[in-house]
């Protein structure tokens, strides 16, 4: 049998990135403040993890203006969703094997 660990995604090893991705799996888009409140993180900490996810093309960022205020929203890419599902399946398999 294939070792499930090989399906674990290194990028989701961080609980924070796992959290960001969990939220983006069930919400089409979320803005920075919504993620910040949800995960109870500081601006800098959240921003650095979002940047890492963006660089790996797991999420996409779009900036627009709501009235005069800039608003940044985040969305999971198809690639990101697939990787997340693989990661989740691997986690479940690991639990099953224990």
């Amino acid at each position, binding site marked *: 049998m294939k070792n499930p660990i090989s399906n674990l995604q290194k990028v989701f090893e961080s609980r924070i990135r796992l959290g960001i991705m969990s939220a983006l799996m069930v919400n089409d888009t979320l803005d920075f403040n919504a993620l910040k409140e*949800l995960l109870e993180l500081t601006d800098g900490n959240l921003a650095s993890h979002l940047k890492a996810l963006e660089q790996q093309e797991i999420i996409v960022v779009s900036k627009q203006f709501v009235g005069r205020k800039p608003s940044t929203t985040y969305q999971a890419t198809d690639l990101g969703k697939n990787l997340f599902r693989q990661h989740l399946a691997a986690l479940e398999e690991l*639990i099953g094997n224990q």
Partner: protein
Amino acid sequence: MKTNSSNPKEDIQAIREIMERSSKFLSLSGLSGVFAGVCALIGAAFAWLVVLGSGSVHYDEYLCSVGASPFNQIIINLGIDALIVLVAAILGAFYFSYRKAQKSAQKLWTSSTRRLLGHLFIPLVSGGIFVLILVFRNNIDLVASAMLIFYGLSLVNAGKFTLGEIHYLGLTEIALGILAGIFVHHGLLFWVLGFGVMHIIYGTVMYYRHER
């Protein structure tokens, strides 16, 4: 929040918890349902005892026979009564949900709250306008039925974004609304069942399931 994960079980729990918290409004308190139910019962008792003279005037037949103008005193009194019940119930819902949110250190006004209210209010406001149309066109006998059905549809629509019981409360209200339409002369009775008794029952169930 832990930075690195090593335990797959904990990871899955965290995923589930964040998915639920980010997509559902979980601060809804069962007590707000109980409070709304009590308000509805008091309002209905007032309507029955004071406005309708203890049933000495059967409400729909009487109202239809008074007829010519929708602005007669009885309809105005019933309208004011209903409005007070509505405002009290909404204030109660906010108060008890605020308390529940504080207790679990959650924010009350989040994107899931806004989404819940959006999905709740679209059918609810349409229903409210439709009920006003019924009143102005003197179709008073169908008001209880329309209120229950539209309220039920609003709850079913909003149920996806909050505690699961709301979905079933919505279905119950729709069923009662249809019955109220069939047994048109017992509108007030179904109104009391739907807005009073059901709120108290479901509110109590929600309180014991999620807040104890």
